[in-house]
């Protein structure tokens, strides 16, 4: 029979809120590992799907977490956690560092990778949709990624990106409109 102690400790870690971990990391920087563990994959996935570049996505996620580590005292003082802050920083980093044409090329190159395990859908249709998405703006792609790939509701996307729900709806509508025009060309 296994000792209950590790289970209890694990449970305690799980129950720690993001804000608690952030506050503890101010005095004990090692606690920030918990934040990295929680959000590294999530941010990588978000950036990777938005940019279509796993390497660049890793860079974005690391830079966002790095900045969060440097500003953890201020974030802890603000009392709002850091998840939405991380997403906002990641989105801004993507928008500022993203070269549209180069990224479009990267995205096309990785289309095969993205569709390496297609479920039952038509590879051609998926490829066309991804190509159209690659030609949208980063802001539009970010919202589409969160909505359809991460299955987040509009309110959560608004919270994470620092926009209003109405703004998210408008961006999503424009993104789909944009994609339809591109697909029908």
């Amino acid at each position: 029979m296994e000792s209950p102690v590790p289970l209890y400790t694990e449970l305690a870690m799980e129950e720690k809120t993001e804000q608690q971990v952030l506050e503890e990391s101010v005095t004990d920087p090692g606690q920030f590992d918990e934040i990295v563990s929680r959000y590294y994959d999530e941010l990588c996935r978000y950036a990777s799907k938005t940019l279509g570049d796993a390497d660049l996505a890793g860079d974005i996620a690391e830079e966002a977490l790095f900045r969060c580590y440097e500003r953890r005292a201020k974030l802890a003082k603000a009392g709002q956690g850091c998840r939405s802050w991380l997403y906002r920083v990641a989105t801004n980093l993507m928008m500022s560092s993203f070269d549209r044409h180069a990224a479009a090329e990267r995205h096309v190159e990785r289309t095969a990778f993205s569709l390496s395990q297609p479920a039952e859908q038509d590879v051609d249709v998926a490829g066309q949709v991804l190509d159209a998405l690659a030609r949208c703006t980063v802001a539009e792609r970010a919202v589409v990624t969160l909505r359809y790939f991460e299955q987040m509701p509009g309110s959560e996307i608004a919270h994470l990106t620092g926009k209003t729900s109405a703004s998210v709806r408008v961006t999503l509508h424009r993104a789909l409109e944009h994609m339809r025009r591109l697909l029908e060309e």
Partner: protein
Amino acid sequence: MKTWRDADIEKSLTDLRWPPVDNVERKQTFLNTYQQRAARRSAQHTRPHGLALGWTVACCCILLIVTGIVTVRTLNTMQVIAERILVPASTVAGPLPHPEQGGNGSGEGTGTGGTTLGWRLPVAVQTGSTAPFLSHLLADRTHHTATVAKDGFTLLTDTISGQILGVTSSKIPDRSDFNIVYPSSSLAASQVLPALVDNAFFHRIDGKVLSVTPIPTYVDKNATLKSASAAVLVSGRGGWRFTFVVDAATNTLLGVSWSTHVTGIVLSSWRGAYIIGK
């Protein structure tokens, strides 16, 4: 050509299967190194910040030193000026004796042309204290002049000789907005000032000094020839001209005559003395 609906696009997006992001190794590397990287970056940031801070402090120090030197010089200049032109309140307002004359009575300084060293303020001045005046003392180094303000009087002074070059006053009993200006470097102008500024009639005419002429004598209402110091021609409202006769030595107004362009000279009386105008 295929027609795409929003629902088609949404379904395609939703059905996409993304491979898991395989970055366990990279994540572990980041977990092991981010604190050291942060420390290095912090050190890199701190160095330029320290340099900038040092430069800022150095610039502030230089600025403070320069400001201090300028301030001390200005204060010294002001003190010298104030010592030259300000005298104790116990003394009567009037011209300061020239050092060579040695303070020989009331007749001193009544002549024209630089026989006095300055002018006593006809207001209360604290002995030996220049500090209250410093805030009202503005030196013009270019023209070697300074203005001193006190109790409604503003004096333009020569900072080299200490002489009063002109006076502005708003010290009027019944009209506080009244101002008289003596834009003259003539000694006579400053000599006749106290006699006029304390006079309510002079204030009432709302006049402007046109000229100050030294005169040796005048005739009073008894047709007696008497000695005077100056005649001040003042323009008033409605074309009136006033001539004030002043004894600058005693700071008294001896009489006044007035006239209009139409009627010519009209004799009148004031303060018990008739004078003949021009």
